[in-house]
Structure formats: structure tokens, C-alpha cells
């Protein structure tokens, strides 16, 4: 691996020759102060008391921007199945790369299908209307709900109509071939 190494060199440039070097360094003149407390800034790799590091029992995907595992990690819903493969792949790119996020979003969609399959595999038929909050829709949005049902009904009637209209001549063909 060709990893960059942080330079520890201090005096890259002799600043003593620069007229006025450091005269504006007073934090009181710094418009970003006190957002950054430089006096109290040990740096990530310098000496500070790091928390004990958690040893996760599940697979954790880690951003390649991290130089090491954060001390504490979340263990909810480890990657699995096809979506898990896509997620693992996504973590080959950094957070600044669009492909990283698009792969993850794609994996999320695949994961939804996996969720339904998993439910069925466990003999559970997901009650999708209930999961979408149909009770509250009926209680507080009767007209909106009726409209949606009407639109859905109209659309399916249209689709059915088109299908029937298309099939009709085809159905007649065998008889015309007699």
C-alpha cells in the first residue's frame, strides 16, 4: 500500500525573515475564534486519553477516511445478502465519491425487497397498509384517502380497458383463421 505519511518536519521554512510574521496571531483578532480553541487542541493522533476500543461481534463497515476504528461503534442490522454485498462494495470509495452514496441508496432499495422475503420466510405476511399507517389515514384524511382509492381504481380500470381492447382482436384472430 502506498499510504501517505504525515510529515513530522517542523521548520520547512525559516519564518524569521518574514516581516510581520505572527502579528495577527492573537486569537482576539481571529474572526473564527473561539470556534476553535487551539490552545486545547491535542490532535487526533497526539497524546490524549482515548476511550477503550469496542470489539464488535458483528460486521462493521468502515469509511476509508478513518485511520482506525472509532472507539465505539453501532451494531444495529449488520450487512447481509445482496444489499450487504453492495454496501461492502460501496465502502471501497470515500465519502466524497458519489458512487459510494449511490451504491448505498441502491442497496437500501434492494434491502426493502429482502425485508419482505425475510418476513415471508419466517411465515409472516407483512401488513403493509398497517405499516404505512392506514388507520390514521382513514381517521384524519378521509377525502384524501377516497381520492387515492378513486385514482387507483380509475388507473387500474384504464389499464384493464387498454389490455382488453388490445387483446380483443387477438382473441378474434383464431376464429377469423377458420
Amino acid at each position, binding site marked *: 500500500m502506498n499510504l501517505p505519511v504525515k510529515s513530522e518536519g517542523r521548520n520547512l521554512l525559516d519564518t524569521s525573515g518574514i516581516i510581520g510574521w505572527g502579528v495577527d496571531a492573537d486569537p482576539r483578532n481571529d474572526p473564527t475564534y473561539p470556534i476553535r480553541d487551539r490552545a486545547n487542541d491535542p490532535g487526533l493522533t497526539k497524546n490524549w486519553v482515548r476511550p477503550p476500543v469496542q470489539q464488535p461481534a458483528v460486521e462493521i463497515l468502515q*469509511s476509508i477516511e478513518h485511520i482506525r476504528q472509532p472507539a465505539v*461503534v453501532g451494531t444495529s442490522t449488520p450487512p447481509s445478502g445482496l444489499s450487504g454485498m453492495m454496501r461492502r462494495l*460501496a465502502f471501497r470509495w470515500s465519502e466524497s465519491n458519489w458512487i459510494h452514496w449511490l451504491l448505498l*441508496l441502491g442497496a437500501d432499495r434492494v434491502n426493502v425487497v429482502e425485508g419482505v422475503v425475510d418476513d415471508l420466510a419466517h411465515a409472516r405476511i407483512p401488513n403493509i397498509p398497517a*405499516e*404505512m399507517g392506514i388507520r*390514521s389515514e382513514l381517521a384524519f384524511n378521509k377525502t384524501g384517502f377516497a381520492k387515492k382509492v378513486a385514482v387507483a381504481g380509475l388507473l387500474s380500470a384504464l389499464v384493464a380497458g387498454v389490455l382488453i381492447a388490445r387483446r380483443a382482436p387477438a382473441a378474434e384472430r383464431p376464429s377469423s383463421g377458420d
Partner: protein
Amino acid sequence: MLAMDYRGPYRVRLTEKPMPELLHPRDAIVRVTRSCICGSDLHLYHGLVPDTRVGMTFGHEFCGIVEQLGPEVENLKVGDHVLVPFNIACGQCHFCQQGLYGNCHESNAQATAVGGIYGYSHTAGGYDGGQAEYVRVPYADFGPTLIPDWMDPDDAVLLTDVVPTGYQAAEMGGIQKGDTVVIFGAGPIGLMAARCAWLFGAGRVIMFDLLDYRLEFARTYCPAEVYNFKEVDDVVVFMKKTTDGLGADVAIDCVGGDAKGNFLHTLFGTKLKLEAGSAIPLHWAINSVKKGGIVSIVGVYGPTGNMVPVGNVVNKGLTIRANQASVKRLLPRLIEHVRLGNIDPKGMITHRVPLEDVADAYHIFAAKLDGCIKPVLVPNGA
């Protein structure tokens, strides 16, 4: 234990899940007494945030009673009633030492741009959240804060996110006495930002939203001058006209990726998900603030690209400040503001829903039914 269970966009349910366990010496297990659904949970609910996995439990706004403690947590005891900031922060790292608790570097393996957040997808660390009976709380010796005896738990639960985020939105705006502040979004965060703007000395607070019932609420709760952007030809022109042609001193975006109001952004951002959500309020904020003004962003956007008018940021000499609120830094002052009655967090709670009805609570909040401003979930045993 029972927990909210994400099944895919617009689909959640309550599921029996294993009890959370102590996984780190600084962990605690907390029995939830209150949790909220947040506007930013809706970005997850709508499938806008990458790496939101099926089976995950949401909920970054919760308070509860300490049930179990890891060996290194010495400042809490079992039975303490605590409010838990939504940021998972170690309190020691490079960023925590600067008070940037929303940017802790030791709590999120999956990304470096954001710290760990309870129940907020794997992009924010992959932690299960508090819309459940029990929750694992990492760095329990740092984040959780005792709820004072005099404080209503309904106020406490809003101190985990809504109040500090609204307050920090106003704080990052650098509001000076007499400033005109324009706030986009009259959801809970916008309401709190407006209320807090007065604490910093604002002279005028203007709010835009799409929903009349939220604007009506804002008119009395904040109180603010309110406008429905649907009834204004052009938000930016309107803002210029009402401020002597200059623009607001400070503009605050409290909406984030779920914004409505522009076909292209809706298509690219929220439908195709190629943008980090619809950046309409950010456009309005940048274009309606005066030259040299400050734009403060607390609305949540996804991590992908955005069509942001950065040229105007340069030409107008704007300062943009944005962050996840560093809750722990702000809590002492905010608890004092609640005690003195300067802010009234629980005044925005419109719905109390048993945890069992989590699917309906999400739908009511997401579809903006029944005048919903802020729903609170209460587990059966709480």
C-alpha cells in the same frame, strides 16, 4: 422488548427485538420514558438517507431511566432519569475538546463527516434509537444529563434535539440587536429557532412555510411574522421589498432535504435521489439574505451533491454556518431558559401516541394530518 422497526420507505412497525446489551465499559442501558419523532426522521422514513437498513430502530430524541451501567460509568446510578443528547460523543477527542459534540470522531465508523447519532441510519453510525422500550447509550458518562426535579419530562425530551438545534441555528446566525431574521420552515426546529432569535435580540422574525396550520401556530408560539410561500410570487423579491431592498440580516434554513416548492429539485433531489434532497430553502436563504449577511443551516441534507448557488455566496460575501447541534455544550444555558420560562418546549407537542401505534404516528407526522406539529411516543411501561 418492543421497538420501532423500519421496513422500507413509508413503512414502519413495532417488532419484538432482543434487549440491548452493554457492549463497551462506558455504555448504559436506558428504559425509555419518552421519545419523539423528528422531522429529520422523516428524511429516513422517506428513504432519503443512504445506508438506512431494514430492521433498524429510529429515534434520536428520547429520555429515560438508567437500568444498567457499564463499569466505567461513575457519574450515573441505576434509577436516574436522564435526557440523552442525540449526538453520541466521547467528550475527549479532537473535536469534542472544541465543544463540537455533534462532530465526535470516536462514535461513527461508517462516515467521518458526521458523528454518531442514535437511530439515524448507518451513515450516522448504525446505532439503534430510542423509539423502543430500551436503548443502548454509549459514552453514558458523558452525554446523558439528569433531568432536574422541577422539569416536566415533556420539556426534557425536547432538550435532546429540538431546543438545542433551534437555539444553535439562531446562535450560528450571529444575530445582533435589531436584526431582521428570516427562517425557512415552521416545523419544530424552525419554531424553536424563531423563539430563540428573540433571545439574541432580533428586531424582526419572519417565517415561511407551506402549511397554514403551522404558520398559524408560529404566529402565536414564536411569535413571528408568517407567510405561506405559495401565496407569495417570489420569496426572494418579497424579502427584498420588505427590508428596504437590502435583504434579511440573517437567514436560517430549518427544512433540509424534504423541501417542497421546485419541480427540478423535487425530481433530482427527492425522487431520483441524485441530489442530497431538495435544496430550495437553501437557495432562498442565500438569495434573500443581504450582502455580507449570515446563512445558518440546520436543515438535514443527505451526503450526495447539491445544486447550491455558490456563486451568489461568493459575490454577496456571505458567511455560511452550519452544523448538527452540539447539545451537551448548550444544555446548561437551555435548562436555565426553560426554568425561567423564556422558552416553552412542550408547548409545541400536539400528539402523544403509545409506542404501539408508531406506524400511525409516522404517517400522521409525515402526511401533516390532524394539525400535527410534534408527536411524542410513550412506551406502555413508561
